[in-house]
């Protein structure tokens, strides 16, 4: 299988599993681990785990929120000055998770470079 797809799936699955018993930085751990074992190149190093976690966090938050009429999401987006827009909050959630994962993957990649 294509390494990109493999990394994407590994990051996603690992993050899902780790999130069951680790705090929010489980997504960083997952991305770091998959970068160590399934190294990618160039932009893909950051963007593949970024996309995996963006997808995880935004879809999961969408699923939780849409089932409750976005009641809390509207309030929290107002709280964060996003103008009561729950979708914007969902996207920001994805971006935050993605950013954390992508950064951790960069570190993982550099470790593989050094230890090669």
């Amino acid at each position, binding site marked *: 299988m294509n390494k990109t797809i493999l990394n994407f799936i590994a990051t996603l699955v690992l993050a899902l599993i780790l999130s069951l018993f680790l705090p*929010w930085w489980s997504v960083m751990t997952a991305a770091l681990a998959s970068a160590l074992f399934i190294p990618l190149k160039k932009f893909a190093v950051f963007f593949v785990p970024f996309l995996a976690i963006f997808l995880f966090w935004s879809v999961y938050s969408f699923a939780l929120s849409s089932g*409750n009429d976005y009641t809390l999401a509207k309030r929290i987006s107002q709280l964060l000055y996003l103008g009561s827009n729950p979708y914007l909050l969902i996207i920001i959630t994805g971006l935050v*998770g993605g950013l954390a994962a992508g950064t951790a993957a960069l570190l993982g990649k550099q470790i593989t*470079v050094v230890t090669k």
Partner: protein
Amino acid sequence: MKYAKLLLSFVLTIGVFFVLNTKLGSLPPLGKFLNPSAGIWQNETDESVTGTIDIPGLTDKVTVHYNAQMIPHLFAQNEHDLYKAQGYITAKHRLWQIEFQTHAAAGRLSEIFGEGALNYDRTERRRGMGYGADQAMEYMKQHDTETLNYIQDYADGVNTYINELNPKDYPVEYKLLNYEPEAWSPKKTALLLMYMTKMLAGGDDDLEYTNVLRLVGQKNFDLLFPDFFDRTDPVIPKDTDWSFIDVPQTKLPASKALLDTIVETIEKPHPDNGSNNWAISGAKSATGNPILANDPHLGLNLPCIWFVMQLSTPNHTAFGATIPGALGIISGFNQHIAWGETNATRDVIDWYKIEFNSDRTKYKYDGAWKDVSMRVEDIKIKGKPHYKDTVLYTHHGPVVFDKNFKSDNERSGYAMRWIGHDGGNNQKTFIELNKANNYNDYVAALNFWNAPAQNFVFASTAGDIALWIQGKFPNKWEGQGKFLMDGSNPENDWQSYIPQKFNAHTKNPKRGFVSSANQHPVDENYPYYVFNDGYETYRNRVINDFFNSKETFSVADFKALHNNNFNLKASELLPYMIAHMDTATLNASEQLIFNEIKAWAFNNDINEVGPSIWRQWYGKLYDMVWDEFDDDTLALISPYTYQTIHLLKHKGDHKFMDIKATEDTIETAKDLFLLSFKKAAKRLAEIKDEKGDYTWLNYKATYAGHLLQALPAFSRFNIPIGGDRNIVNATSENHGPSWRMIVELSSPPKAIGIYPGGQSGNPGSQYYDNFIEDWAAGKYHELNVLQSQEITADIIGTQTLIPASNE
């Protein structure tokens, strides 16, 4: 190169982790906060109202039915299980609130917010909030372990809930502020009761009065602050016979007020904290059954201070409003009786000047030196070292003001004598009221109540109505404690208490109704010293006039009275102002506003402009009249509204009417009417520019603010409701009827009630604020008592709490 890149990516990763894991200013830790697996998205959920829950320590099964309003109906087999379940269910819906309020009571907000809350925390501790809670705990340990055990049951229930939680389940406020719930304890219930005592009996103006007395002299003081106004319509009817009282008032010693200069005093509770309650006898009721109503006026907050529950055992069924953190129903009814409270403000805080020896270990008393005791208040501050504040205690109470707090005098201080420090057993009153069957049980239950003094209204299916003004009141000498007193003179100490049976009360009065609205408790004929310490003077008269206006009344009349917007205060001054103001100099736009207010019929309805013009006009007028008391360098109080209006109408050329700043002219009341009107008109024009118009709806803009300083995202704004302070519908901007209840004492009783909030404390729940529209519209919800086995269509879910096996 590759090592540089490694280092760079390492630093970047750590940086991203740090930023997303740390609360930065008001911004929560975003990674933690937005993580869908454990952050706020987990709070995006409705209430769970089904299933079976294991509760350690239960002796039997407890059934919890929820109705469509999310009101839990608890059915336990005994009282221990009942209060355990009440603790559990309350925590389930209001955990953050109960902890936050008790942290606030204990002066522990710096732990959550950091240094910004330190001054608040020091004030609460110097006020002796923790000390008072300790005294209450001590009292119960020694005299009433039964009640203490119930409080322990409640604590166990709360803790069972807390122990069930994973961080992902924490209420959203914990996630926002990045902290965790701690274990609940019986002392927290005592702290909550102190919080209520402070809210309702924590205000006084002795030190302000002292400054005013020094400034204006005794004669003027008595004119501005008379012990009784020229008319009173007291809680206990004027024709009450007091001849049964055989313990006299304390004899007047030769004591004099100490005319110190006090610059600053501690923060006081909201001056509008008060309430209405009333009950009519069967003879005055359209159905022949007594009817009772209660509406406590408190800050309008989310989550609301009230949480509605039914609490049943095989022996009793109580239903009504609870205060999360305390046991039992506070304002409600059972199968036999109904009860409710209004605040019975009395001067139960006095201040004593204390003179210390050189190292402040002793203070002067009765010609000798007496030991000071010390209480070290250890205040945790988020992100900073602890702050230790040593508070000195005398036999009077804590020395609130000394060289370490709002004063610079090395050798003296002001000690606070507060009934709230006396310990006692307030919780027992509610536990007993919940089970009371008749008038005698009600009176017996009140016996345990010390503070805050309340007007407890009562009605029973047996046909009795009553009202007791219950609290522990010092038997003061004439004038005692109105001003600062010399703490070294034993004559100034509280000498004794008014025997409980001589507390003012009325049962089945001739007029066929009882009522209270924070007005003067009694008239001059009551044989103990009571003076006007800020009593309400308008709502009571509207209520009493209403019940004197016709023969019989129905529940519909009660609803109309709750929602009555008649502004008696305006009706007593406005016609006089309009008749006596010189209108020759009004310009066109001022004339327009003048015509608007002339056309107003004194109803504070939302679509009127009259209430807004009145508020502006009277506000400006009041400030002009009492410009003498506008002084930033002194703690002062201006006279109360009733006396202000009285003086404007009857002593319009008194020297107080003159504006001090205009040295070459002498203003009278009539001049002030015009000057203040012009000022008000200017401000109203500005408001019109800002808000589009100044209808009462937009002017007042009532809101229910989240407990975190009305955090906009969790609050509700522009609630369409009329009324104002001093009006029966006492809804001002952020204060008003926090619970409205009407009970008809049929057999069994029928009740309706509502409050401006919702049963859930979770801003992510549809039940967070779903009562607000109906409340604003003057509607009520039926409070239908359920039977444990009965599954009605109204039940949306049932939870069963079962004893956890001891493994």
